């Protein structure tokens, strides 16, 4: 066990800190994605290698060698300084790696630099109302008509659809093929005629997502990544990455600390909440679980650096992390009693009403990105080597 990052990395950490200290005034806070301040900050971060770090310079990245610890240090320092760490979003986190792996040179040139600079914002068109856990059963169709795909159908859970310039979208192009082999991966502009975006309000009362409807949307034939029918492979080339971020124990630790603080200051019946032993025991149980998940996270990080195996440790993060976070937020609601119900612009919100809002939002994350049921299938099959359910004939 060696928990230190070593002198080279401590030097690097100092550099990152110094950069943040010097430049934090230039960082956007709540400005729009599109603000000049946000775009300038993004360019500055790329230049210093604090975002788009390992993407080749030829495509507008910083071009550094991959170094997991440096990436981790960057993330840690920007998070603890509460300074914007650069643009995120599905274009940068999902499309760019996909194009690097599967795109043509022309596609890379056309899309990656602009995306990294924040000038081209993307949304993801994968899920459909009828295709959730069973994503490969998606029905949005694209039919070739001359030099154009004609797209009809509907997508859901497209989080930034109302802001996006472009969409990367899975569509069915070969209706006769087996379901995983009939899908293609298309790219097209969101201002193409025939696209309608409707905000999708969720249980938190906020439109965190959208539905997107396509009616005879015409898209140039060449705006496809990979071959016709290869869309499932293209999408899965990087799908695993998305789930890693759900259930991050470091974020959960931050919340645990906030909950502990609240319980030390808030009172019920003249007694601090922390002095209620039943609440305290629940808090301590959660602390133990958060601790286990944090150490598990360090183990995963270390395994990435040292190329050792921690696949099961990694595979359980989404399931355990989102359930744990949901429970933690739920304790925050419980201890607040009636105050845990306050919502909207109530003067009685604690911590901005985040306990009750997150309690619901993390239930959404238990469901989204592969429900807990799907996670358990994956853990048992890929993690424990248990057989898939047998094939079945329709009807009994």
């Amino acid at each position, binding site marked *: 066990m060696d928990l230190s990052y070593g002198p080279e990395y401590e030097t690097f950490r100092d550099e990152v800190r110094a950069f943040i200290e010097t430049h934090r005034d230039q960082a956007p806070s709540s400005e729009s994605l599109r603000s000049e301040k946000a775009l300038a900050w993004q360019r500055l971060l790329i230049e210093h290698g604090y975002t788009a770090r390992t993407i080749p310079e030829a495509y507008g990245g910083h071009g550094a060698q991959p170094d997991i610890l440096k990436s981790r240090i960057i993330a840690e320092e920007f998070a603890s300084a509460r300074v914007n760490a650069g643009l995120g979003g599905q274009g940068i986190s999902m499309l760019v790696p996909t194009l690097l792996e599967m795109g043509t040179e022309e596609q890379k040139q056309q899309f990656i630099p602009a995306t990294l600079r924040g000038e081209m914002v993307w949304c993801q068109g994968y899920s459909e109302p009828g295709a959730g856990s069973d994503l490969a059963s998606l029905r949005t169709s694209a039919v070739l008509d001359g030099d154009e795909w004609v797209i009809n159908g509907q997508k859901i859970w497209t989080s930034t659809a109302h802001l996006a310039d472009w969409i990367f979208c899975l569509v069915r192009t070969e209706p006769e093929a087996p379901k995983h082999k009939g899908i293609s991966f298309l790219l097209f502009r969101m201002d193409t005629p025939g696209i309608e975006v409707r905000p999708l309000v969720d249980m938190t009362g906020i439109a965190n997502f959208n539905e997107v409807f396509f009616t005879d949307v015409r898209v140039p034939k060449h705006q496809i990544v990979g071959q016709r029918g290869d869309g499932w492979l293209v999408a899965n080339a990087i799908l695993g990455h998305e789930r890693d971020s759900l259930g991050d124990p470091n974020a959960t630790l931050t919340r645990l600390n906030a909950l502990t603080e609240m319980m030390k200051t808030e009172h*019920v019946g003249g007694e601090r909440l922390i002095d209620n032993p039943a609440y305290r025991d629940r808090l301590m149980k959660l602390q133990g679980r958060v601790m286990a998940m944090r150490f598990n996270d360090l183990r995963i990080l270390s395994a990435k650096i040292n190329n050792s195996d921690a696949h099961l440790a990694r595979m359980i993060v989404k399931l355990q992390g989102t359930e744990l976070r949901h429970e933690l937020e739920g304790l925050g609601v419980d201890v607040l009693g009636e105050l845990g119900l306050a919502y909207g612009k109530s003067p009685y919100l604690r911590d901005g009403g985040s306990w009750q809002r997150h309690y619901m939002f993390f239930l959404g994350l238990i469901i989204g990105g592969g429900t807990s049921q799907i996670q358990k299938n994956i853990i048992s099959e890929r993690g424990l080597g248990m057989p898939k359910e047998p094939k079945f004939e329709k009807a009994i």
Partner: protein
Amino acid sequence: MEFGLSEEQTLLQDSVNRFLDAQVPLDRVRAFSEQPDDQDIWQGLTELGIPGLLIPESAGGVGMGCLDAALVAEALGHHVTPSTFLGTVVMAPLALAYAGADQDELLARIASGQTRVGVAVGDAVAARQDAGITSAGSRLTGKAIFAMDCPADYYLVADSRQRLFLVAADAAGLTCQGLPTIDRTRRTAELTFDATPAQLLSDDPEVFARTVDAGRVMLAADTLGAAQNMLDQAVEYAKQREQFNRPIASFQAVKHMCAEMAAELEPCRAMIWYAGHALDELPEEARLTACHAKAHLAEVGKLVAKTATEVHGGMGFTDLVGLHYWFKRIGFNRQMLGAPELVREEAARLQGLVA
């Protein structure tokens, strides 16, 4: 021996359910959540005699009992009904009766649906630092938060020593300010009192306790109805929804989630019947069963609310199917009049188990 509902009770619950099925579909609930006016619903409930349910016939009511009220509460929860109930129909009439107050005129107005009574006792159940009401003589000063069934014509208010007062809405120094909560089917408010004249109903902590017991059983019954509906919706959705070429209801994981909900929820029905019955008929058991009904339904409700949402997948998380109205109603019932740990500690105290 009959552990179950009388024909009259079944009819009562059926008639309320029929009215709510017809007049309070999800769209009506949604409309209320934007524009909180329940006049039509209250009118319909009045035609069914609900306001006078617990009021003696001599005072213009129908003179039924707490089990009947619990059955109505269950139906209201089932339909996430946006309507006054807990204060006006249950806690105020019972407090007046338990206190032996001579208030037939007020009761008659309540029974006729003309007068509503909000209830502000939360701070006397579990004091929070933002609030608190003190009384000097018959004047109240201070603040009550998360008062229920507001605004109203009268308020049933407990001070910090669990004395119960009745305050008219237009009493001097009283203001009522709506407070939004996650549950947009209920109207809660902050009440502030500034040497506000009030009528002392009782200084007997037993009267306060019995009134709260009844309130707790009604919240638990509301959760029973809401949770049952969420389970029903989950089963129905699972039968319709196909993934991997089969209804998700045929996946063992989904079936077991539903079975676990049913296994937890079904015994709660008998528990609510007994707790409602005990309020009127078994005084020596009423408090303990009320505490346990409140705490246990809070826990089962929480499980069902989460699990039924999960069965719905992403749909459960959206506003599209409106499942969250039930989720939040169950959450409201859990937190009001004592969250589970507090109520369980009270149950232990009642049995002499706390040193």
